[in-house]
């Protein structure tokens, strides 16, 4: 049963690592803007010529 000391030690260490990760996240300002990154990820990287063509037909 002495194993339980080791296991509890491990679990607390693991939890502490998550807590530190959380601190790191707060400090790096990840939560300052929770909206824009969600939109940003949906943009295409390259300028899409083809899509513009389609929208041209839409409006012509």
């Amino acid at each position: 049963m002495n194993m339980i000391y080791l296991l509890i030690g491990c679990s607390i260490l693991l939890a502490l690592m998550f807590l530190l990760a959380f601190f790191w996240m707060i400090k790096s300002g990840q939560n300052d803007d929770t909206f824009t990154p969600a939109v940003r990820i949906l943009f295409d990287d390259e300028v899409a010529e083809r899509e513009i063509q389609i929208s041209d037909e839409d409006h012509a």
Partner: protein
Amino acid sequence: MLKENVISSEKHCFHCGDDIIAQQYIQNNKRFCCSGCKTIYEILTAHNLSNYYVYNKIPGKTQSKATSNFDYLEVPQVVSKLVDFEDEIKTIVTLYIPAIHCSSCIWLLEHLHLLQSGILQSRVDFLKKQVSITFKNDETNLKQLAQLLSSIGYEPLISLQDIVKKGQSSKTERSLITKIAVAGFCFGNVMLLSFPDYFGLGDFEREFKNFFGWLNLAFSLPVVLYSGREYFISAWTNLKAKRLNLDFPLALGILVMFLRSAYEIISQTGAGFVDTLCGLVFFLLVGKWMQERTFHHISFERDYRSYFPVAVTTINEGVERPIPLSDLKTGDRILIRSQEILPADAILLNGEAEIDFSFVTGESIPVKKTLGEIIYAGGRQLSGSIEMEVLKPVSQSYLTQLWNNSAFIESKKRIKTFSDTASRYFSIVLLVIALGAGIFWISTDPSKALASFTAVLIIACPCALALSSPFTLAAVLSVFDKNRFYLKNTAVVEELARINTYVFDKTGTITNPNAAGLQFNGTIIDAQMQLISDLARNSGHLLSRELTKFINKPAIYSVQEYTEKIGRGISGKVNGNDVKLGSSTFLNLPLKSSSEGSAVHVMINNVYVGFFTIRQQWRNGFKELMFKLNTQADLHLLSGDHNHEKKQLIPFFQDSSKLHFEQSPQDKLDYIQQLQKEGKKVLMFGDGLNDSGALKQSDLGVAITDNINNFSPGCDAILDGLSFHKIPQFIQQAKDAVKVIRMSFVISLMYNTAGLYFAVQGLLSPLMAAILMPLSTITIILFTSLAVRLFAHKNKLL
């Protein structure tokens, strides 16, 4: 579907979606309402940025407003105040851009490097409407950057006061979140380690009990010393000031719980209350976070500095030079261009001044000034440039003097909340019961005396009580938010429930600044209306645009020989007819004194037809609102305008003695003070700088605006003009919220009483406390948020 698109794109501008009324601007088969919109389209397509129009249909905003002059961004003193970071190679600046509103805006603003290679990076914060731009110093500068942004329709709003937040507020929020994280981390671990004890340990596992206890004690240290520190500090400072607030029983509860747990664990007599302790601090901090959370990024602390420009153009021996406002001296010669704001009291030297004072004095009609006249600071020049000589420095002008008043210097007294009052009695009763239980047990069974004394303080620790206000009020705040009523903090809700007197400003507050009602006096036929409409279309003057909107006819004829005399009138040949529109002097008519403000006279083929008069229009639902409020409260009107609308307004207020016209900003402030001396709780509705003093002095100042990103004076709450008619519902909701807080107080007191029943007998077990505390907390959270939503449905706010 496709067909609809074709039809709509013929009538609406491809860039901004506005109706195309005047002549069309066509480029690549796309129609635009003005050359501004077309230019932006051309710039974007030329730089391969037409994806802007792919992510959203009509992503742009109308370009009809003239762009500002950014010369002052070359002045080093101004630049150094604006930039976040600067070295020899690059500069980082954060700009506030009110036009940010959709994903296309984000996309375009983050691809600025395609338009200007000197821009290294640009990041948008959508909710704050800010863009942070890094650029190379040798390729571009702040002025060019501002001009570039304006050229694509994203003009930055630059002010020296508080528009761009420098991360000051987020620091306190970050530290609170860190505290919550620590408390939550400890709470979770302690709960895990406490379970074995709650379920009973076999003989074999007894050896772990001590180990778990010591671990628990170790976890409680950061909770008490770090996360819960604020409660001890607040309780102590309040105690020193001889006040008992809710933090006192909370701090006492935390302290007693910690000491008793430490004693039990060290002496190996029990498991202690570490579980309850960590949970308590965790829930309390979550409540605090709810209370302080802001849903929006609106500034409530603006004064004249954010309304005034950052710099002004001076003329020295024929050389124009921008200087910062703070360097402006008496005797300086300044140049005010069209649509610019005059920053100091000055004498008109040159040019035609037509000044809009509506924001400063409440006067609804632009005023014409002649050479040599003094013009007070804060007015907006409407047409053409004027030259002036400064009479007084900025801080001592007629308008800004208001800010030297004591109402601005003394900090506003804190709003007394229900929980403040209730907690005083609560603390006293709690101490009496704890001491009573202790004394009782000393005389009968001294071994239980300390146990019952501490147990009372532990179980009665008003966690649920402390959470009922923040959770109720935060829920109300989010309901108000959805209805475009933005409060500065949660205490404002309780103050709103107590209001019994309402004071209204007139111009811009109860009248709608964007809609003037026109009326034609005389006889006119439809064909003549068509001619007037076609002529007025050509002018950018405010009245001409109103006229075109009012007549609402599609364009048929083009205009020949069009001439416009700024501020006087327009004329031209429409379908062979001579049409003249304008003031009576423009048409060479004998001066007619019009009692109802400005008039536009009409002359067709040298025959006088009649004139249009402009009437201020009440905001939507104004009449219903006043009749509703009349039955329950005292209504007053304080206007800086002339009293030509008094007759129409009398029926809305109980009697004419409550209507006051031609009030200076100081008069308004004094009037509110007078009402307060009579013991009234005053709510002031205002919109302009001239209401600033009254808004500050009143118990609750509400600024009304049609665009929350525009300037609004310092206040406790900002109301969007669209929700003006909902004011009685907001007040009812605030009253209901106070009811909800009282009900939840009763509920949490019931939990406390149940716990006390065991505590005074010395029978309180750690398990019981560990169940009762979270249970009462969750009940309160559920009850308050559900009750607030229920009332919001009843009040038709959801």
